[in-house]
């Protein structure tokens, strides 16, 4: 019952927000996709940051991004320890020139 009351209140509030700019409620509250604005923003930043420094890879390897390398390094995987993700037998190590 309480859940229904809360939901009804939310519906009323969102409807008011839709017709009255004076009734507060930001675009994250009345979000036309329903997904979290902050999460979208962070995801965009994550991907940009993850690949801003990702330069490829081994001599003779096909040109392209090594996603396994980029993500494992981005998330701080210790090359001396086996990853619990489904990594292949080879891992990529980084060195400062």
């Amino acid at each position, binding site marked *: 019952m309480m859940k229904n009351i809360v939901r009804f209140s939310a519906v009323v509030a969102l409807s008011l927000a839709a017709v009255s700019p004076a009734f507060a409620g930001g675009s994250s509250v009345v979000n036309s996709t329903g997904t979290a604005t902050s999460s979208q923003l962070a995801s965009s930043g994550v991907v940009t940051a993850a690949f801003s420094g990702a330069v490829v890879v*081994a001599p003779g390897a096909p040109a392209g991004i090594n996603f396994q390398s980029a993500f494992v390094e981005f998330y701080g995987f210790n090359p001396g320890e086996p990853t619990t993700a489904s990594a292949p037998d080879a891992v990529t190590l980084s060195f400062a020139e």
Partner: protein
Amino acid sequence: MLVMFDCVKRAGLAVLAGVTVMTAAVNTASARDIGNVTMFGADTAFILPHGAMFIGGTLSDPRGGVAGNDMDGDIAFGAGFLSPTDSIGLEVDVNITGTDPMFDSGALTFKASRALSLQPNSAIFGSVAVSNVAAWGDAKLADERWNATISGMTQIVGPSITHPIMWTVGYGSDAVLRTPGRSLVDSGVFAGVGIGVNKYFGVSVSGTENQMNAGIGISIPGLDGVGISYGVNDITDHMERRQQLLSITFTKLNVFKGY
């Protein structure tokens, strides 16, 4: 400059000295530009790494996608904890949805993510997120929202640049507008795909069961960590909720370390 090599997993540090000798050759052979991939209008399963923080602001016009409304502004910031490649990563965000007066409305978002598959030229992550948690102000009038998302990266190798492709598919509460011209929402599916066109520019399209969104992402040379996105929700106005959004984010890695 950061240079990377493939080494056999258990080769150990003894290999390192020999590998560094090869650095110059690799520099000339394999450095390539990477496209600036983006995703607008749909959540993804990628999260901030441990120690990273972001802050972002969004201007939306009109408020709530309702024609005739004024512009609206939101602020969000967050931090990442733990690693989705080693265990499960967690991101905590704060949404400030009320900015007049500042901070009079808002809520928290929690997202847990896990790397499901890491291959040399593809990566797939899965996440579960719950938002509008511990809401205050007007945000408190809405229930918590949740979504479960699977996202991946792959690529197209062009003649001079590698174009990363990001895709996402998810199911969430409150993800789909119920009827045109109303702001009532139901649970449902959302999805999107984005591609990095060049080093500083990417495009994406996303949608739900009854609306389409499209946007671009821009990075600025010399401004590491800064991202700008512009897009339009419900771009065909099918649900009468067409809305322009302009966002600026700043992401900083290694703000804090240690658990």
